[in-house]
């Protein structure tokens, strides 16, 4: 059995980067813990892992973990990661993004990474808000919910991130929450091991910018809400569409085998080189 605190400590950069920037009660730390345990489980060394992140509270994760780490520009983490993967396919690349990072400003890169099926693992920390900039509404803020730029309630229909990436061709799609931290470990280690583009959506409470404004209670209350409204995927499928309400499926939603980008590229190399190979 792995003792969490020891494992965690092994992967942190304690002398350089602490105290961290996250608020008390924030879910991102739980997501980071799950990521560390998942990596530990895969058996990769620190040098074999590259952690690329975007900009936002979630994007700060790359600062704290002792891998090859790259804190990019807002929304663009996947494109930097694509360049790294193509340059050195041996590296295992995990890309941490916020919901705004991944689906608003970086939405184009997300859908094309899915379509390309490039062998990266995307971890999207979905707190339903722009945390870092003070609580503006994001593409995943539910209708009618309040944000600093939606004081009268949001009028935009939110994305279902998992459905979006499934439709765009991702090879592996899973969802978990900060309440289901152990499931999150498992989803992440599966995603890292998966060849092709994989996406794990981690629902994560932002008590300060989202919870407070929308009367969601304490961080614990927010996590209990995840518990009460999450349904395993097989069970979710049995709920009649009209009765879904706020419930959402968790667990593995997509897991398919298909050639990844580099496998296809190797065919191009063969064609280009003709009989020289």
């Amino acid at each position, binding site marked *: 059995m792995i003792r969490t605190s020891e494992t965690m400590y092994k992967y942190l950069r304690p002398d350089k980067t602490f105290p961290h920037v996250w608020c008390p009660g924030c879910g991102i730390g739980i997501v980071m813990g799950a990521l560390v345990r998942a990596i530990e489980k895969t058996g990769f060394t620190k040098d074999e892992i590259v952690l690329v992140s975007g900009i936002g509270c979630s994007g700060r994760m790359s600062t704290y973990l002792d891998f090859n780490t790259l804190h990019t520009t807002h929304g663009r983490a996947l494109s930097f990661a694509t*360049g790294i993967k193509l340059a050195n396919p041996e590296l295992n690349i995990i890309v941490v993004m916020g919901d705004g990072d991944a689906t608003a400003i970086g939405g184009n890169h997300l859908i094309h990474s899915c379509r390309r099926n490039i062998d990266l693992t995307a971890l999207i920390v979905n707190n339903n808000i722009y945390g870092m900039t003070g609580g503006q509404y994001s593409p995943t803020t539910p209708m009618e919910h309040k944000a600093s730029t939606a004081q009268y309630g949001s009028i935009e229909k939110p994305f279902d991130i998992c459905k979006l990436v499934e439709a765009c061709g991702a090879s592996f799609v899973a969802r978990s929450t900060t309440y289901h931290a152990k499931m999150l470990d498992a989803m992440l280690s599966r995603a890292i091991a998966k060849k092709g583009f994989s996406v794990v959506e981690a629902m994560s409470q932002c008590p300060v910018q989202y919870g407070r404004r929308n009367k969601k209670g304490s961080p614990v209350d927010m996590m209990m809400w995840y518990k009460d409204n999450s349904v395993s995927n097989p069970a979710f499928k049995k709920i009649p569409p009209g009765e879904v309400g706020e419930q959402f499926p968790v667990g593995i939603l997509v897991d398919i085998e298909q050639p990844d980008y580099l496998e296809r590229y190797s065919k191009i190399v063969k064609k280009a080189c003709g009989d020289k190979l």
Partner: protein
Amino acid sequence: MKRHKDLLLHGNEACAMGALAAGMRLFAGYPITPSTEIAEFLSVELPKVGGTFIQMEDEISSMGAIIGASLAGVKSMTATSGPGFSLMQENLGFASMAEIPCVLVNVMRGGPSTGMPTRPSQGDVMQSRWGTHGPHPIIVLSPQSVLECYTLTIHAFNLAEKYRSPVIMLMDGIVGHMWENVQLPEKIEVIDRPEPSVPPDWYNPYDNLPGGEIVPLVPFGEGYRYHVTGMVHDKSGFPTLVHEEVEQCLDKLIYKIKNNLHDIIRIEDYMLEDADICIVAHGSVARSAREAVNIARNEGLKVGLLRPITLWPFPRFHLENISKRVKMFVVPEMNYGQVYGEVLKSCPKRAVRVTRVDGELVTPAQIMEKIEGAAL
């Protein structure tokens, strides 16, 4: 390969061949006239030499991908034009800030906005210097011929590696699309990334070394785990707001270029020794200017040419020196006077501009008109 004999090439092709010769092994780009031939050529050639070509979803991601590739130890390049160049600015600033070597080719077309896609321009001289926000270093090169598209692209990669900086090849649409018979040099100098001189525990990727020596950038995955960010960082690469560290970080970016102007700046002068009038021109316009010098000399006018090959850092000191000898400057450009402004800044001498923004090349006759009109 018979490639090193006489070849009929266009500028974009020569640029792509130069990149391959310099060891570029990853190209990421998005099609745009008049740069697209670079991507097309490399999509055919890169797979043959163990390299990777990828057409990204836009120019923003193209710039991101080449930065990523460079961090993984592979020389990388993108190519674009006006609108795409604008989209690349944020990540270009990232490369400046994080000190990631890479090469961006901008084959200039008429702007602003969609402008004149198929007509050449030199309208991005200032954008290439100041397009991204905040104080930052940049190196910008301007070729005037197909041969130079080849040799300067190699030079661009060398400078990028040597100074850990993005380098822009600022070509105009004429140079990019011009066909010339060229003999590529048999021997070229290629600078590769140096090995680190310290073990991982001592490695500070952003250290200020004595004498301004630049710390080698170790590729990700080689046991030197470090952090790279676009935030102001300390010598180890982690974000900082400590005043002295902030200042050190930003100063270093500027001074690594400023302290090496002699090495970075390349100019060419033509008939300047006894000149009364100095034309300052770059890119394809420099070819018209050279012809204007010949015509003027035939008429007994003492005219010479200064051609900045390195546009940024701008060859201020060269201009200052020349201004001690000449009576005036004439600055022809395919814009409203972007280099002209720099000439004015560099020396108090009289300077006139010859501008053209209708998508045509500045002609020798146009330059002569100004010279004769100046009637010394």
